[in-house]
């Protein structure tokens, strides 16, 4: 009995850690850069699939893939923002128009990235075996890969959260999220900050993807479901609140783990039920105003 509870709790924390990462990434992109990035899940997918390739072809330790995929995704996100979204920003007549145009543009990105990935990797489901030995905890056995993933997710999530809350750059980001115009006047290079945030968001997604691939199988169409989960967590935590996404991620992860224990196919339905209740009762979310 205790084993089962522990199992569900650990799975919940693992799921929660992953959800927190992807939600914080999306929160950065939407909260600061004001882009509802529908292609967010594709960066997760890229992280996972790249790790698979690096492991099976080059034997690269997936934890080291973090160091490869994270910065690469950051660069990709940064460049995409500088070229595509910055251009949209200047050609959009109002913030509202920019929001819809940038979302549509992210559709375009979704199509492009997913198609390129399918061409390169094909549609098959991929998995690899890393740290798949059991560790004994409180008299029960748990996969080492899942424990390690959980630990890394927690560490990165906390580190990122502290980064936004405590550092100067983090303050600049929060200022830009609150009021881009004023932040610009106070010496914050707004364009760089926006691109930075978009890149960081992509990096977080890729990192989550790497971690996901350690414990779960991956394939080129896995992105959409994660995008939706990220969005639900972001709304749950409060649109634009990074701490909210962190907390919301864990909440949803624990719920998800419980539901998966009951019936694996119903997790998304459970999340949507929470989403519906949220919209009915408190659309602004946990930390929203």
């Amino acid at each position, binding site marked *: 009995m205790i084993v089962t509870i522990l199992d569900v709790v650990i799975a919940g924390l693992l799921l929660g850690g992953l959800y927190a990462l992807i939600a914080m990434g999306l929160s950065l992109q939407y909260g600061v850069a004001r882009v*509802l990035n529908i292609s967010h899940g594709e960066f997760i997918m890229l992280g996972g699939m790249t790790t698979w390739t690096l492991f099976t072809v080059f034997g690269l330790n997936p934890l080291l893939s973090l160091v490869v995929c994270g910065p690469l995704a950051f660069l990709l996100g940064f460049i995409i923002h500088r070229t595509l979204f910055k251009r949209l920003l200047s050609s959009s007549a109002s913030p509202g128009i920019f929001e819809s*145009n940038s979302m549509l543009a992210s559709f375009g990105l979704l199509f492009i990235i997913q198609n390129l990935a399918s061409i390169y990797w094909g549609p098959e489901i991929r998995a690899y075996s890393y740290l798949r030995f059991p560790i004994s905890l409180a008299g029960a056995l748990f996969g080492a890969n899942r424990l390690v993933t959980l630990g890394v997710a927690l560490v990165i999530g906390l580190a990122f959260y502290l980064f936004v809350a405590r550092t100067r750059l983090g303050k600049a980001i929060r200022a830009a999220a609150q009021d881009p115009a004023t932040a610009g006047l106070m010496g914050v290079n707004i364009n760089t900050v926006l691109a930075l945030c978009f890149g960081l968001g992509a990096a977080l997604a890729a990192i989550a993807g790497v971690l996901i691939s350690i414990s779960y199988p991956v394939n080129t169409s896995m992105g959409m479901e994660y995008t939706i989960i990220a969005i639900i967590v972001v709304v749950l935590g409060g649109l634009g609140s990074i701490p909210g996404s962190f907390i919301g991620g864990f909440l949803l992860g624990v719920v998800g783990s419980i539901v998966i224990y009951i019936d694996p196919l119903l997790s*998304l339905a459970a999340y949507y039920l929470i989403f519906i209740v949220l919209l009915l009762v408190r659309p602004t979310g946990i930390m929203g105003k």
Partner: protein
Amino acid sequence: MLLVVLLLLAGLPRFASLYNVVLVTSILMYIILTQSWVLFSGPTGYMSLATAAFFGVGIYTAAILGWKLPLPVVIVTAGLLSSLLALVVGALTLRLRGIYFIIFTLGLVELIKNVVLWHAIKFTGARGRFVVLVDNNTIYYLMLFILVVLLLTTYLIRRSRYGLAMRSIGEDEEAAAHVGVNVTMVKVITFAISASFMGAVGAIIATRWTYIDPYIAFKSLYSFMPVLMAIFGGMGQLYGPILGAAVFAYLEEVLITKFPYYYMLLFGVILLVTILYLPDGLVGLVQRLRRGGWARGQHANT
């Protein structure tokens, strides 16, 4: 002009090959999906991504009921079920800011797919279902009929006080509320009407596919395509989305046969190019050409 086109379309199966009838049926389907999307999302400015959900509901209605009931009844039922779903979704989300609506409709397709899959595996043991067979000409005429009904509906709504209310909501929702427009109700009802056409079309096309499963019926692609087609065609004029859908649907057929592995990529590129360089779509292009073309550069872009 429209009448001529409709008459030509009516006579198509007589003189065209089977391949062309099937092709035009697909094009008509996309036109209906796009135009019904525009019916709601155009005037109100709320971008719905639920098209695939309503479309899928229609498909499954045909799969489940097609064996037991005559086809017209099935189609009407599909339309009703889709509008019921739309009423629920609309009542839930249309009273909130637009972003919540977009987000909710985006995930709706995945949600329904998962639920249907769960149900199929748990209760029927099989992932998919077979759909009753209908001949291609019947399918074609049914599609054409729905298109005519849709065009008629669009026209009547536009002319009515109802269409006036919808336009006012798109211009300034708060002002509309303050002159007495029941904003939420208008939005929800329009949403339901547009969904009914999507469901009807899904029911019709399912009979051509003959075998369906949750992955086939509930594809996010069918939510994105009408948006892409409407923007590509241009939302500035009434004929824009229809033109966009026609051109794009034809392009899709060509691309899928020639580049089956690249077509999504090309769609994405076309979407990006359209948003960046052709924000008014084909309609904008036509208007610019009418005003004297790029080469002369005398007329400023509006």
